[in-house]
């Protein structure tokens, strides 16, 4: 086990380093804007006529003090880290006094509810389709597969736009925007769930089709590689049944795909940002979109932080899982390609 321990320590160290670098970037980059972010906001407020110059000055000093932008950089950094440690992401510029973590907590469930089922469904169906097209060839390989290959090469937001136009605008089968009817407030009622389900269909389909496409293309290539392996030829020469051979191939081609699943779940938050914008779905994507338009830096930083944490954790878990699998199996199933 000592070997595994040192592997683990090594990994923890590297991920800690990656995390520190990510945090520093997250802190530093928005502060590179010439002047400071508050300048931009306040000037926009005044030009918009929302504020008199007197009031603007008040807002300005209040913001500067609130965000500690008058302090030297290192002090700001310590403060930022200290707040983070307490789970405090600060106050939204645009929706003050709402705290960033509250805004994110409202949006995140929508994103997860949209993405997680789409990823799991797409992954499962895509892998099955991939193996079957590789092994069975015929109609599946020449008819169904190219369609999914086309879909998978499509930018996912383009598919979203086209689905939206076709099924919500041209044929008004589904609602055009939002996560539920505007007339409602979220409540655990039958009507609300019905409305949410109606709003769910299009964004979900746009994601799931892309996932199936991408997954099946990858799985097909992997399966073709396995099909050519010596062990397949040998098993066939001994008369081993087809379904057993497919099971071998599936299992061996699957190992790398599991990594893909873990990483897809880890990057779930950033995976469908634009889908949400297209459908005005009340998740993280829409929140980010609004925040960018309003120069709401604390919210943007909060979201980027969330994305990073998800991806880093997923990567970390995948690496640890690989430490468990025997390295020789790993080398043979993944390393050689």
């Amino acid at each position, binding site marked *: 086990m000592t070997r595994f321990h040192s592997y683990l320590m090594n990994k923890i160290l*590297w991920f800690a380093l990656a995390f520190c670098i990510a945090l520093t970037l997250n802190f530093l980059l928005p502060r590179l804007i010439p002047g400071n972010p508050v300048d931009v906001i306040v000037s926009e407020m005044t030009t918009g006529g929302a504020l008199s110059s007197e009031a603007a000055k008040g807002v300005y000093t209040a913001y500067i003090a609130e965000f500690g932008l008058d302090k030297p950089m290192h002090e700001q950094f310590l403060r930022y880290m200290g707040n983070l440690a307490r789970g405090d992401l600060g106050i939204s510029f645009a929706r003050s006094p709402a705290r960033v973590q509250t805004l994110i907590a409202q949006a995140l469930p929508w994103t997860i509810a949209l993405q997680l089922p789409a990823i799991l469904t797409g992954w499962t169906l895509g892998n099955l389709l991939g193996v079957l097209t590789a092994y069975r060839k015929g109609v599946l390989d020449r008819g169904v597969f190219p369609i999914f290959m086309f879909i998978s090469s499509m930018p996912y937001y383009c598919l979203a736009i086209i689905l939206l136009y076709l099924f919500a605008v041209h044929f008004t089968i589904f609602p055009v925007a939002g996560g539920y009817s505007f007339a409602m407030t979220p409540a655990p009622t039958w009507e609300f769930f019905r409305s949410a389900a109606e709003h769910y269909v299009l964004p979900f389909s746009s994601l799931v089709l892309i996932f199936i496409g991408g997954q099946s293309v990858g799985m097909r290539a992997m399966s*073709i590689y396995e099909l050519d392996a010596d062990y397949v030829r040998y098993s066939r020469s001994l008369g081993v049944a087809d379904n057993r051979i497919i099971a071998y191939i599936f299992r061996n081609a699957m190992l790398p795909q599991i990594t893909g699943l873990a990483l897809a779940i880890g990057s779930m938050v950033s995976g469908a940002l634009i889908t949400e*914008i297209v459908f005005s779905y009340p998740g993280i994507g829409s929140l980010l979109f609004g925040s960018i338009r309003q120069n709401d830096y604390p919210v943007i930083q909060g979201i980027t932080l969330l994305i990073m944490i998800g991806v880093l954790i997923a990567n970390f878990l995948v690496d640890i899982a690989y430490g468990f699998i025997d390295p020789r199996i790993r080398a043979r199933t993944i390393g050689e390609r």
Partner: protein
Amino acid sequence: MTVATSEHASFDSGSVFLTGLRKFFGIFGMINRRLLFSGCMLVLVVGFGVLGPIILGRDNPMKTVGGLYDPPSATLWLGSDNFGRDVFTQLMHGTRTSLIIGVIAGLEAILIGLLIGTMAGYLGGIVEEVLMAFTNVVITIPSIVILILLSIAISTRSIFAMGLIIGLTSWPWTARAVRAQTSSLRTREHVDIARLSGAGTLSLIIWEILPYMLSYVVMAFVLQLNTGILQEAALSMLGLGPSNTISLGQMLHWALLWESVRTGAWWGFVPPALFLTLIAFSLLLLQASVDEILNPRLRKR
């Protein structure tokens, strides 16, 4: 160190280069339909974006020529957008911008990837460890985060800057692959033979290792080009596109923001979405069909 070559192995090894050569020139000889299709599509798209504005004399995509979402007509072939600008002109210029950004990003990613990958793979030891650790850290930080933060930090984003930013986040995968290839190539006997003839490190990398990676590099560039174009579109749709110009992503951005989809003004969003799809599909098809030619395992089917 096998006892002797098996029948199959030597059947292959004897003609490795023959097949290699055939692979290269065969691209012309055994053009498959998919390659032909994707190639033609790309030529058309590039011609449209690069030559279109010159031939048609439509050099200003920002000029207001109509009203809010005028439908297509004899003068406005694809109608006008939310600001009354000609969608057709925007499409040409947008295509060009997207392609330029993609090329800049792709070239940058390939160059950085090649530099870091060959250095790490060839030199090995501590250099390799440091470079690969750096690469792995960059890989684990999601590129979209860096892109968002960097785009915000640069308040005025030129086309060139957009390309650079995108390229800066997409090189690590190329670097990894190049390192893996380099470290296996450097143990090949022809590299040893060249060393025994007194060749220096740089000349070894350029003359003995790079030629073997040429086909990979071309394919990686195609993929990076695709990534670059799509990343630009995603950033633009988030509202972080290049300033003071138009790209396919920005056309979609404005179309979404000004409710072109929901008001049924299809000419606002269908052309850019179609073009993005077309470019992405052609590039991937090109990559796949070239891969098929270079990789006999897939071709056999």
